[in-house]
């Protein structure tokens, strides 16, 4: 049977305990196109591609590569079929050079004096340099991974699959970790790869990217294939609708803000990083009850440090922080939580969660030491479980095995839901959200925004740190634009346009 598809997946079904990740999904991908997979977190995009890469085997269904039926049993087998994946979480050895990482597993063996085998690193260096030039991915192959920026590391990941002569390249959420400029560059690279004859599969939930580069796009929802669309003739709105199965409003609806008493007051806050360099300089601001104060700015301009300093994760080297009139500058983290701070951290896996603990334990992990979760130092496990199932229902946290699910096995969006649920349940007068929607799909973003606004309407003071300008313009009542550790401008959101905020963010405009 001949077909014009280079990859065909027919009737793929894959089940995990408690969840059907892929339910009878059939897609065909043509040679030389950019094919996007669109879907919410947990829609089954990554599972489908992991099957194509040989990391999972499907429960049902068939795969055809170049018209031939294959059973892809391992990633090595996939590599032999010229399929390569650029992972979202890089799989690189930090202490190795770029070349060493790329050739790892397929080391070219030379022979010294025709007898003693050794790794021909010099040839490999040359080959990788050539390869990187051909595809516009210039790197210095002798540099160590630990010394590279995130976007450079991603280049290495791309080179890794190109070195293995991949013809079908799968990109798993490649832009999640990149800045806007880097995203543009990467999309250019992807188009270049397509033009040189490679077939690209792009897993993403960012509609603009799909609109920009993709030719066709398959939409998945809850494991099922909804539709395959021609990108050029489909509006982003329709794509979004199909993706989450209902209409989305890109703009959150919110009632006008009603500010009440002052909750948080930050006075001349200064924070130094580990190298003793001042990353937050002399920053002052206040947040009132019923107010969403958003810090806008390009990454690494001190906004995360402000949030960390308020929550107590880093020490302020100068200035004062007042919560409800009380000076909490030198309080412990636990005391601050007790006096009323909830904190949704930027890095949910490193800070927000104990990945090896179950959901119930994680949901109670900020209250375990108090009644009713424990009494005189003895834990009450029943209370943990009860609280857990209550929150799972209330916040629609999807987990395969209920309260006993290991958090590690949950999707990113559901992990975030669990953190937000835990923090809201603390009922703190001040809530800090740092990048609450990072790596989360559109449906969930809408949901999270709704929850934040709901909390505001209940009279909480909210500090939102975000790198997404749209999010800030959408949700914030007051915007503080930070540049180089200092506020360039603090004003109500109505009085600022997106462009103005952008200019302040780049440090181009001063007050």
């Amino acid at each position, binding site marked *: 049977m001949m077909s014009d598809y280079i990859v065909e997946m027919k009737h793929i079904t894959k089940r995990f305990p408690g969840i059907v990740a892929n339910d009878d999904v059939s897609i065909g991908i043509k040679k030389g196109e950019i094919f996007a997979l669109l879907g919410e977190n947990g829609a089954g995009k990554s599972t489908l591609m992991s099957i194509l890469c040989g990391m*999972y*085997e499907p*429960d*049902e269904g068939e795969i055809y590569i170049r018209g031939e039926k294959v059973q892809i049993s391992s990633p090595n087998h996939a590599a032999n079929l010229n399929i390569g994946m650029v992972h979202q979480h890089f799989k690189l050895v930090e202490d190795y050079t770029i070349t060493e990482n790329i050739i790892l597993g397929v080391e070219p063996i030379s022979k010294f004096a025709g007898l003693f085998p050794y790794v021909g690193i010099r040839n490999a260096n040359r080959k990788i340099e050539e390869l990187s030039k051909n595809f516009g991915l210039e790197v210095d192959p002798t540099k160590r991974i630990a010394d590279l920026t995130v976007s450079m590391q991603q280049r290495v990941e791309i080179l890794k699959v190109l070195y293995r002569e991949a013809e079908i390249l799968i990109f798993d959420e490649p832009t999640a970790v990149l800045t806007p400029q880097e995203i543009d560059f990467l999309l250019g690279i992807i188009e270049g790869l397509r033009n040189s004859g490679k077939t690209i599969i792009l897993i993403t939930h960012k509609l603009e990217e799909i609109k920009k580069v993709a030719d066709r796009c398959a939409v998945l929802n809850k494991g099922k294939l909804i539709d395959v669309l021609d990108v050029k003739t489909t509006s982003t709105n329709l794509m979004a609708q199909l993706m989450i199965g209902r209409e989305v409003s890109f703009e959150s609806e919110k009632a006008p803000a009603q500010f009440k008493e002052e909750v948080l007051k930050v006075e001349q806050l200064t924070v130094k990083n580990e190298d003793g360099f001042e990353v937050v300089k002399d920053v002052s601001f206040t947040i009132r009850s019923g107010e969403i104060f958003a810090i806008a700015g390009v990454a690494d301009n001190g906004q995360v440090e402000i949030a960390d300093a308020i*929550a107590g*994760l880093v020490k302020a080297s100068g200035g004062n922080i007042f919560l409800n009139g009380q000076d909490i500058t030198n309080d*412990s*983290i*636990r005391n*601050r*939580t007790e006096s009323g701070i909830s*904190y949704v*951290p930027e890095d949910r896996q*490193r*800070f*927000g*969660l*104990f*990945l*090896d*603990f179950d959901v119930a334990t994680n949901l109670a*992990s*900020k209250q*375990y*030491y108090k009644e009713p979760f*424990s009494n005189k*130092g*003895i*834990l009450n*496990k029943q209370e943990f479980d009860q609280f857990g199932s209550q929150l799972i229902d209330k916040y629609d946290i999807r987990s395969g095995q209920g309260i006993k699910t290991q958090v590690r096995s949950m999707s990113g969006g559901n992990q975030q839901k669990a953190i937000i649920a835990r923090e809201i349940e603390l009922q703190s007068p001040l809530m800090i959200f740092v990048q609450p929607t990072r790596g989360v799909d559109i449906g969930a973003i809408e949901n999270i925004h709704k929850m934040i606004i709901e909390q505001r309407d209940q009279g909480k003071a909210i500090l939102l740190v975000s790198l997404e300008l749209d999010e800030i313009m959408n949700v914030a009542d007051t915007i503080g634009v930070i540049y180089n550790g200092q506020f360039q401008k603090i004003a109500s959101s109505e009085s600022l346009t997106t462009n103005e905020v952008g200019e302040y963010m780049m440090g181009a405009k001063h007050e």
Partner: protein
Amino acid sequence: MSKDKKKTSLRYRLIWPLRNEKWQPISIPVASILVSFIAAAIIILLLGKNPFQAFYNLFQGAGILPKPTYAGYKSMLTDFLQLLNAMTPMVFASLAVAVALRAGLFNIGVSGQMLASGFLATIIVGYSGLDAFIAKPLVLLVGMVAGGLMGGLVGWLKYKFNIHEVVTTIMLNYISQYVISFFIHMYYIDPISRQSKYITEAARLTLVNVEIANMKMNIPLGFILAIAIAVFIKFLMDKTVVGFEIKAVGSNRNAAKYTGIKVGSNTVLAMVISGGLAGLAGVTYYLGYFGSIQPKVLTNIGFDSIAVALLGNAHPVGIIFSSFLISIIDQGSTYMSSQAGIRQEIASVIIGLILLFSACSAYVKYKVSRLKDKEVDRKDSES
């Protein structure tokens, strides 16, 4: 065809306990024990001896099975009590390793902590001539405090200066080994045995040569304490706020800090508990099983306990069983070598094999889950 099917179903039934994740904590150690006995049997066969005979002798020597004849004043019970006597420090030492492991720390210094606490208890109480009712609890107390302080020092160095605990514990092993051997040689040496002088009977945690029903037995008082402490540690780790915080720090230090847990003091606390348990191992070893200290020697128990703790899944009840087994092989080895004519070292080989296979448990888990996937696929393609 039908024969083939039978084969698969038999295989299926045999490995079922290994496949079921709920049973894996028990089935994998049991399987590794079985596999290592089979491996040992092959070795014994290669030596031209009967493995069943050897294993039988092993259990006879440990007092689990009766020997054909006993010397005067001895019986199976005597042997069995001696087994418990030897097992007691092993339980404590493995608990020490397990508590540290739960906090994400690797206490490789159990031997040094045992020696230091055993030595301090010996010179403070062992030679004091105090009454038994005061001396015995005092020995336990001194051991616990000395070990706890030494463990605490390791935790504090980690918290304050970020020195890795493996480095400090190994260094402290050497320091205690040589400093203590200096003091023993200078002040406490018994010129005949070339060991430290024997402690008083009153301070000893094992009642030696007690005559009951015309038998002479060694009654290890520490054993009851060991079981009680194991149950207490299980309770502490699973059911209390203290245990929760220690496990949280062990699971993810960053997240623990973020939730408001004091990472530093919990690191120190976990090491104090671990050291205190090692101290109890030290006093039940040097002032219980033995009555003196051999200078310049670190006991193997401290190192074996790492593997025993792993074999018991770092779980207190599991540790009781794994120490029991390892002690049986240890204790039975003398009798086995005299009866079956197999060198005593074969017992060490068996222990080594068990520990080796149990250390492979992560691999077994992985392999089993791979096999499961494969089997599902095969079934699909068949149907």
